[in-house]
């Protein structure tokens, strides 16, 4: 019999039972909860008169709706305020730990789980949010769920799931100068499309992946959902253990040694078989940028938008509609295009390493006058560390301001919206029509490309400065 994949090892261990002619009942180790997709689930529990089965395996935070300035004040938008308050009431009633607004551990759900040591290898992790795939960077099975499923996990700590197929994507070789993990994942999506991994759980592997920090690995797993995958994961190794060690909720003492021993057994066996395998070379990847309205419409920054003839017949209509929305022409070069906003943040690139990379790049330079920049840490801990490392000061000297943590301009649910028709270079994960505000035009990039663009005021290849 062939060996097992990382995914299969974790999945098999968590199957409680299999429904006749149906899905598996999967036990869930960690459930993250936020204000937008949970109120109806808590209401469902109340209707049924039942409790949260394992409040200690559940953690809540408020992130989507919150403002990123003046967080000390009541939230101005009435509906947002109500939703955030509702979360607090529900957590109180059901005994779920909440790191709400102004808590020192508050932040974007996919940033705080890892940084508190709650996210660990071998776990099954869910959240009512598609970017839950982020946590897979630790070698866990992590995926987004709908609100009925949130209710299901709150009530029973289990979930009915059909077992997805497995795919391994290998990226080997050394990354070029100015090329970072965001470019790797945007490159993969540009190659296989937004449906390229539909129905699969993806393991990212290969020497390029192994060389990445945990922050960089999270960026890749975060966007696995944008290639259609149910989730993404990376085998745990010394880098993983080093990151977790000593964090708030990480195992300590002999517990730690025991845990690491178990985690070492997780990586896919050498003879494990995947339903599909793909291979990419790091040397083929340059800094990436999207030009359209889905994350698959990405190109190397030095190349031009494809011509209509180069696009497959069936997607030509979508392609044209997309360019019309962006007000770009087929064949246009991306470099030099005018930009109005630069957004650095989100669960994709709002971690300390991202702020560091941005700050290091702009140090001693100045923000271009035509640019409005929103630099938003992913959590209070990231904010505090940025403070400590002098990043805030570097930003301010260059004319940038660091805001307070939250999802911010990643989606237009809070006050941070890109005005209609404006161009935003963004380190987030979705460039859908209206995602950053009605009529907003988004181009997805890495923090380095965002930095280069912020100082010149137009789309700029970060390698020009390196």
């Amino acid at each position, binding site marked *: 019999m062939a060996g097992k994949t990382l995914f299969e090892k974790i999945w098999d261990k968590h199957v409680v*039972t299999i*429904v006749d002619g149906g899905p598996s009942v999967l*036990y869930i180790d960690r459930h993250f909860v936020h204000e937008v997709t949970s109120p109806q689930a808590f209401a469902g529990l109340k209707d049924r008169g039942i409790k949260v089965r394992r409040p200690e395996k559940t953690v809540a935070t408020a992130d989507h709706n919150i403002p990123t300035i003046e967080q000390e004040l009541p939230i101005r938008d009435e509906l947002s305020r*109500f939703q955030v308050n509702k979360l607090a009431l529900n957590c109180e009633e059901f005994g779920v730990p909440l790191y709400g607004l102004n808590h020192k551990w508050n932040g974007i759900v996919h940033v705080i789980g890892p940084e508190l040591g709650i996210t660990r290898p071998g776990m099954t992790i869910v959240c009512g949010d598609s970017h839950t795939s982020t946590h897979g960077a630790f070698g866990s099975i992590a995926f987004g769920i*709908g609100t009925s499923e949130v209710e299901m996990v709150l*009530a*029973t700590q289990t979930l009915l799931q059909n077992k997805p197929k497995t795919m391994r994507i290998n990226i080997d070789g050394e990354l070029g100068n100015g090329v970072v993990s965001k470019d790797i994942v945007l490159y993969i999506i540009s190659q296989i499309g937004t449906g390229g991994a539909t129905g699969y759980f993806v393991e990212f592997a290969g020497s390029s992946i192994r060389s990445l920090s945990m922050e960089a690995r999270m960026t890749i797993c975060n966007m696995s959902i944008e290639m259609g995958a149910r989730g993404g994961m990376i085998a745990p190794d010394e880098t993983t253990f080093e990151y977790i060690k000593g964090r708030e909720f990480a195992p300590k003492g002999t517990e730690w040694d025991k845990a690491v021993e178990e985690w070492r057994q997780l990586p896919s066996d050498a003879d494990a078989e995947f339903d599909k395998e793909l291979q990419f070379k790091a040397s083929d990847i340059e800094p990436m940028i999207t030009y359209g309205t889905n994350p698959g419409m990405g190109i190397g920054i030095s190349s031009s938008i494809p011509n209509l003839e180069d696009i497959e017949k069936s997607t030509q209509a979508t392609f044209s509609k997309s360019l019309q929305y962006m007000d770009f022409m087929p064949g246009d070069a991306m470099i030099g295009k005018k930009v109005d906003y630069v957004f650095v943040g989100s669960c994709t690139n709002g971690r300390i390493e991202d702020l560091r990379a941005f700050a290091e790049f702009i140090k001693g330079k100045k923000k271009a006058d035509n640019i409005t920049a929103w630099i938003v840490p992913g959590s209070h801990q990231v904010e505090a560390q940025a403070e400590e490392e002098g990043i805030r000061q570097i930003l301010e000297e260059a004319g940038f301001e660091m805001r307070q943590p939250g999802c911010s301009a990643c989606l237009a*649910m809070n006050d941070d919206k890109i005005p209609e028709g404006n161009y935003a270079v963004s380190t987030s994960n979705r460039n859908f029509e209206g995602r950053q505000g009605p009529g907003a035009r988004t181009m997805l990039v890495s923090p380095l490309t965002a930095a280069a663009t912020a100082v010149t005021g137009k789309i700029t290849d970060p390698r020009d400065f390196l």
Partner: protein
Amino acid sequence: MPIDKFVKLESTCVPVPIENVDTDQIIPARFLKATTREGFGDNLFADWRYDKSGNPKKDFVLNDPTFSGQILVAGQNFGSGSSREHAAWAIVGYGFKAVVSSFFADIFKNNSLNNGLLPVQVSKEFLEVLFQSIEKDPKTKVVIDLENQKITLQPNGPSESFDINPYKKKCMLNGFDDIDYLLNINNEIESWEKAHS
């Protein structure tokens, strides 16, 4: 939320012959701030249904009294985009009990079944016949028989079989949802927890 039983449905249909209807069109993001499942039906297809000042747009089918019923018939690839369950709530909230299309996005299908809304996937040809018949006579009725997994145009057909996961079928027929099922196997969950603590 306990769901309504679904055994057999006979109804007229509301046609939306548009392809790739995504969840943002079914229920725009600005309506996601609610904290209950109620009221989403009022905003189903909001941007197609109302103009900027909130007046019904005459040319959209939901505002056309000619068409009514509990079956929504939609173009290929219905329900793609974000995983928001609010899309299913909006369709159920409006009063639909089944959606017929030639292809559904995965998560939407799941979300529908979790809310007692039956997604019926038919062939492209059958869908075409449906659209034409409804167009010709808006009073045309369709029978969806879940027990026999059959959809039939009244009075004389044609008719086509559709697929559904046997477990989900049982849930729909009995008005159980997944939570009822999981609560019932509490013993097994408990033993799993004991074995893994």
